[in-house]
């Protein structure tokens, strides 16, 4: 990469479950610019990695993002032909498996074999790390079986892999903004303690890491925040300058919008103290940040400062924690609310002794309430005139058969419950608990390996 041209980084996925058709316009825009460019896919939320670990148990070749080929196929040839580097955490619980799948995809598409770097070191689930986890978690160490344990690693190894010539860098757990900081470090050659520049590029990563959330997704509110073309949202591109400041744009001809409003919402998303946004690479400070529209669907972020990175790395540990069961049944027309409420009381009595039962009346109060359903028992609680009410109940239990009783009791309401109840749906799934801890940086051996 020439290091006098400004770097462009595009994002084509913000989580596992995102649209898989966003990449092509982004890559076309990156290529049309003539600038050095990278493309990221972010597909690894907290739960996703634990689920991937479970998948790997039943199939040793699995454990990477299931939609990896769908995400990559539309743009793979273009990226390789034009030197658009790809960085992603779609390696999940099996980065080597992902690399094999990518090589197979290249062969399927008749492409020359790409250079793939696989990042290693984030996985702390092996027995050799158990004492480290026990020391870091103390009394919080799960007594249940551990499914996964992963450290959030940073951008340094990504940058090293890119400098070593990787076309694609496949990661497991990394801090999401590091997917963007890695290419910026490789391109500009900043020192790893250049805190202000690292913080600025980190916040560019934070704006990009949720995909369409900065281009009009998770935003539209008719009459208040209108977004054109929600079905054709363009995904974001950050132009990062030599000082780390960024301008966010999207491909021409796509739906969505980039405004000071969309950027401010994404800037603050999942932040706590704006003076101290902690990542493995830096502590970012946005208290002096400014957001300014510089054109149609183009917004610039400046004023970000940085401080020394933490001495520790965050580790997420997932463990088996029983079963989650839920069931629903609908009532409509006159006194729908009263009939739904009565059904809830029946279930509370039938399932007594199994632990707390959450009761929602969807159409009256559901997602604003808490798990104790305290609102239901409040003197002012009233189902009123609601004409279409769906009762939902949920519980969790260590024991599968006990959790399953909820499904059976909801189903039995067809003949045993209030009048006019219909549309029963029930579901169960294994529950994964998570707990976090901090470990010293030098306890985590991060490296990359070129895979041929």
């Amino acid at each position, binding site marked *: 990469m020439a290091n006098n041209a400004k770097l462009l980084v595009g994002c084509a996925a913000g989580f596992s479950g995102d649209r898989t058709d966003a990449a092509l316009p982004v890559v076309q825009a990156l290529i049309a610019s003539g600038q050095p460019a990278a493309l990221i896919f972010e597909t690894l939320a*907290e*739960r996703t990695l634990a689920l991937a670990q479970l998948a790997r148990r039943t199939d040793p070749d699995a454990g990477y993002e299931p939609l990896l080929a769908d995400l990559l196929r539309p743009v793979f040839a273009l990226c390789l032909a034009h030197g658009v580097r790809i960085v992603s955490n779609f390696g999940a619980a099996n980065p080597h498996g992902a690399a094999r799948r990518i090589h197979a995809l290249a062969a399927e598409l008749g492409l020359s074999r790409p250079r793939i770097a696989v990042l290693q070191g984030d996985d702390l689930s092996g027995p050799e790390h158990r004492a480290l986890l026990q020391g870091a978690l103390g009394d919080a160490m799960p007594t249940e079986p551990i499914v996964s344990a992963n450290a959030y690693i940073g951008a340094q190894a990504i940058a090293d892999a890119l400098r070593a010539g990787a076309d694609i860098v496949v990661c497991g757990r990394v801090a999401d903004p590091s997917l963007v900081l890695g290419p910026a470090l490789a391109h500009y050659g900043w020192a790893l303690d250049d805190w202000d520049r690292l913080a600025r590029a980190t916040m560019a990563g934070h704006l990009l890491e949720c995909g369409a959330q900065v281009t009009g997704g*998770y*935003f539209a*509110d008719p*009459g*208040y*925040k209108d977004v054109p073309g929600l079905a054709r949202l363009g995904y974001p591109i950050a132009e990062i300058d030599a000082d780390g400041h960024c301008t966010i744009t999207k491909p021409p001809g796509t739906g969505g919008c980039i405004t000071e*409003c969309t950027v*401010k*919402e*994404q*800037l*603050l*998303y*999942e*932040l*706590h*103290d*704006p003076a101290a946004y902690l990542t493995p690479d830096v502590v970012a400070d*946005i*208290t*002096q*940040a*400014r*957001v300014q529209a510089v054109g149609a669907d183009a917004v610039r972020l400046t*004023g970000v400062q940085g401080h020394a990175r933490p001495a520790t790395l965050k580790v997420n540990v*997932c463990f088996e*924690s029983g079963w*989650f069961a*839920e069931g629903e049944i609908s009532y409509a027309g006159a006194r729908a609310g009263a009939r739904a409420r009565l059904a809830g009381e029946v279930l509370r009595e039938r399932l007594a002794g199994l632990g*707390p039962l*959450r009761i*929602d009346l*969807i159409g009256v109060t*559901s*997602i*604003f*309430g*808490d*798990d104790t359903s*305290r*609102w239901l028992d409040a003197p002012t609680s009233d189902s009123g005139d609601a004409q279409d009410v769906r009762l*939902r109940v*949920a*519980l*969790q239990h260590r024991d599968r058969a006990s959790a399953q009783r909820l499904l059976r009791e909801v189903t039995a309401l067809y003949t045993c419950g209030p009048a006019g109840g219909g549309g029963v749906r029930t579901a169960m799934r294994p*529950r*994964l*608990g*998570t707990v*976090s801890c901090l470990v010293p940086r030098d306890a985590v051996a991060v490296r990359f390996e070129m895979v041929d």
Partner: protein
Amino acid sequence: MTSATDSTITVPLYRLAHSRTGDKGNRSNISVIAWHPALWDVLVEQVTEAAVARQFALRQPRQVTRYLLPQLQAMNIVLDDVLDGGVNDALNLDSHGKALSYLLLDLPVTVPAHLAPYFGGPTA
């Protein structure tokens, strides 16, 4: 400059600001971003930690912390232990608490009437 006889109106917060929720573990963060800089002072005055805690009485957060970002006319409200354990532990359909921004946006705010031209949403 307001006089003692300036009229006020009470509107839901969504007329003054927009908002987005994020979650990490059992903690929710909700941004409150003014539609216009002219609305910032009244937001700072009334969207206080105590007012938010009252608005969230149904959820009983252990703590409410407000961070101000005047350069952005935005505040970040952090609510601790408000998600019944969070996405992996809660029984809620919306275990992330994505909808909670709209619980906050219903907060009644009393505003000098002359600020009405800056409100978000449809004009009367």
